[in-house]
């Protein structure tokens, strides 16, 4: 059954027809054309598909598309403010927090949710916030350091 689904996507209106059973991840990548969220496991175990729904991090692979009707969905593609990178994006670059980059969009969104809620997090809070995100390249330390550094940078953490 095809269901019409409308939601806000990175600040603009998105309207698609979702096939019954399509995940939010599939809808974002294949119908909306936003390939920032990644497909890793499809089972909730890797965090690569992390997006914000109404500001809180969720796994797009386990979210049925129909259930986001009327919600606000933010992906890593919506982090920039015009041409200006989000402090997290700048810090991920300067701290070499990405190697292959596959986990990065999910890491960024888990981190953004943390900074929105807790602008000056402790190291433990950072570790807990990204505990659901797997990275097979960096060994995590550069990612944790980047998030802590972003928290020290000026500029709005919300857009």
């Amino acid at each position, binding site marked *: *059954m095809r*269901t019409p689904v409308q939601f806000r996507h990175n600040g603009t209106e998105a309207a698609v027809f979702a096939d*019954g*059973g399509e*995940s939010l991840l599939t809808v974002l990548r294949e119908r909306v054309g936003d390939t920032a969220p990644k497909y890793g496991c*499809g*089972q*909730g*175990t890797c*965090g690569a598909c*992390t997006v914000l729904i109404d500001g*809180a*991090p*969720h*796994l797009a692979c*386990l*979210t*049925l598309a*129909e*259930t986001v009707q009327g919600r606000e969905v933010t992906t890593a593609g919506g982090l920039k403010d015009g041409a200006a990178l989000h402090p997290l994006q700048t810090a991920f670059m300067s701290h070499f927090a990405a190697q292959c980059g596959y986990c990065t969009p999910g890491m960024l969104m*888990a981190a953004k*949710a943390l900074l929105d809620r807790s602008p000056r997090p402790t190291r433990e809070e950072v570790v*807990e*916030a990204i*505990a*659901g*995100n797997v990275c097979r390249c960096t060994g995590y330390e550069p990612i944790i350091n980047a998030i802590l550094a972003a928290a020290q940078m000026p500029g709005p953490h919300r857009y």
Partner: protein
Amino acid sequence: MNRFTYVRPVTVADAVAAKAGAPAGRFIAGGTNLVDLMKSDVERPPRLIDIGRVPGMDAVTALPDGGLRIGALVTNARVAYDRQIAAAYPLLAEAILAGASAQLRNAATTGGNLLQRTRCHYFYDPSMPCNKRTRGAGCAAIGGVTRMHAILGASEHCIATHPSDMCVALAALEAVVQVSGPHGARAIPMAEFHRLPGDRPDLDTTLGADEMVTSVDLPAARFTTHTAYMKLRDRASYAFAIVSVAAALRLRDGRIEEARLALGGVAQKPWRRPEAEEALRGRAPDEATFDRAADILLDGARGQGDNDFKIGLARAVLLRALAQAAAGGSDAQGGHARA
């Protein structure tokens, strides 16, 4: 994934009616377990009844008897960070935070957590025989890889465990599940909500096929200071329990006035034995006393081979959790994080 119809009822009555009209249909709340199971074709519901927006089930409210009502749609994250719960039921907050990840806890609901299915790998694999999936098909786990399976309350038909952390704390706190069905509402105590497999492993709970969970009620707080949730898992975060323990004590003049103990990861339901709690009453909180309670709680424990180690492990975690509870609860790191 199978094809299904999708409805979004706006009242509990509509939701219950939608289920009555499609007995093989499923309620969907956070979807974190159901969608996963549908992707592996373990669940093939012809209809999804999305209860996510039914009003009146998404709040934590005070009850006249001093307890708290947690609506079935309140997310695990909201329960864990709720101020009233953190203050009055720290055991529950600690148990929830020991499970899953931030993303999952944001989606997972109280009702869905109660009704999540076992994580037995064979259950998740439709090419394997499984009595829980198909009545009478046989059990691939028995004689197979059993590291995560039950040591208590299993049957010759099924040796699965219930994977929830939240439910272990709810069992220790003697919460009551409120449900609604076509014939009205009823209350099910936690001890009776989940069932042992027996010869009906297809039934995880005593909830009727036409009933829906509306809330979980916590009785007035009795265990606020001397509690501990300790969880052992293969890595320090984001894994299901191999063994977990919820321990709650009330101490007076150096003696245990009242105790609650529940084990997770060992049976198809949170494992409690009132006799074990009785054995602690009136005694000093020392190792000999704790040992006696462990003897009773683990009485009859039997491994399947790969999981024999769980029996000794459960005892060790029990003793540590009790000692930690007696000392005034978890340290800043939380018992689960370091255990």
